[in-house]
């Protein structure tokens, strides 16, 4: 019973961590993208002839913004769906004793 509780605790915290990783990553990118797209439209509205150049720059920045969110997303999904390193540490300890 004790072990089950311990495992449940680790799993619960892992679920929260995964949720935070994915959710905060999504939120960060959403804000970043919003600001980026807004500024892009503003720039194009001011100087429409620059729009091809600005578009390239915007996509460049979009990729930069996206990268950290993607890394965070991958970490979260790995925690959730793959072998949980924290849980396996606990299990190792339990079976080792």
């Amino acid at each position, binding site marked *: 019973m004790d072990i089950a509780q311990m495992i449940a605790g680790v799993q619960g915290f892992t679920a929260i961590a995964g949720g935070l990783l994915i959710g905060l990553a999504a939120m960060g990118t959403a804000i970043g993208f919003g600001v980026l797209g807004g500024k892009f439209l503003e720039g194009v509205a001011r100087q429409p002839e620059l729009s091809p150049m600005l578009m390239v720059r915007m*996509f460049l920045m*979009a*990729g930069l913004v996206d*990268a*950290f969110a*993607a*890394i965070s*997303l*991958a970490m979260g999904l790995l925690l959730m769906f*793959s072998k949980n390193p924290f849980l396996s540490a606990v299990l190792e300890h339990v079976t080792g004793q």
Partner: protein
Amino acid sequence: MSDMNTITESEYVQHHMQNWQLNLHTGMFGNGGFWTLDLDTILVSVVLGVFFLAIFCWVSRRVVTGVPGRIQNAVELAVDSVDNTVKESFHGDRSTLAPMALTIFLWVLLMNFMDLLPLDLLPRIFSAVGAPHFRAVPTADLSLTLAMSLVVFALLIFYNFKAKGFFAVAKETMSRPFGWWMLPINVLFRIIDECVKPMSLALRLFGNMFAGELVFILIAMMPWWGQAPLGVVWTLFHVLVISIQAFIFMMLTIVYLSMAQEAH
């Protein structure tokens, strides 16, 4: 996905997260710590690199001056647009940088494109040959992205010294950005600044491709009615991510090198 009944979800994910590795200590398949070759990464990346070079070589040998064929058109478009991009941000002799940028862009693009193949296609084929694990996307392997960015890093240092000379680089390292009286901090800043560049290049590409692959794996574990719409949506989104990441890798290489070449 026919053996979904016999293995669990996390086993399926882990199976797809493992490279086909060669242990250099023993000469056997398996993980050997640092001395490990990821055979699948090497195989796929070399095949794609040869494929890209072969097409470009073939086209360049039979260029026609009149109305170009379809492939020649595509090749000319790629060469021209990359050359223009380099010209915009890099001032100086671009006879090495422009071809390198083109190679980086197309090679990374092709390797990223392996993400859009059916997830189990290459692993199934290679498991028939005898490889226990196979990861089809070379750029989702940190060793490849880090290797590419280390090459960029070496070029960065080379261009720094070539364009400015040893003493100018030394002076710049010691006196910027805070002036001579903060010399150690300046040197420390410079070292961090230079080392962060290849790290961020490699981790960005790796992280994006890894996340994309992972989401594809998770989609593949769903029942068919979930796979179809989500797979289409994520594939469409991922086409964008793939090309943007390849473009960013190229663009940042160019920007870093032009920064290295110009005095601060």
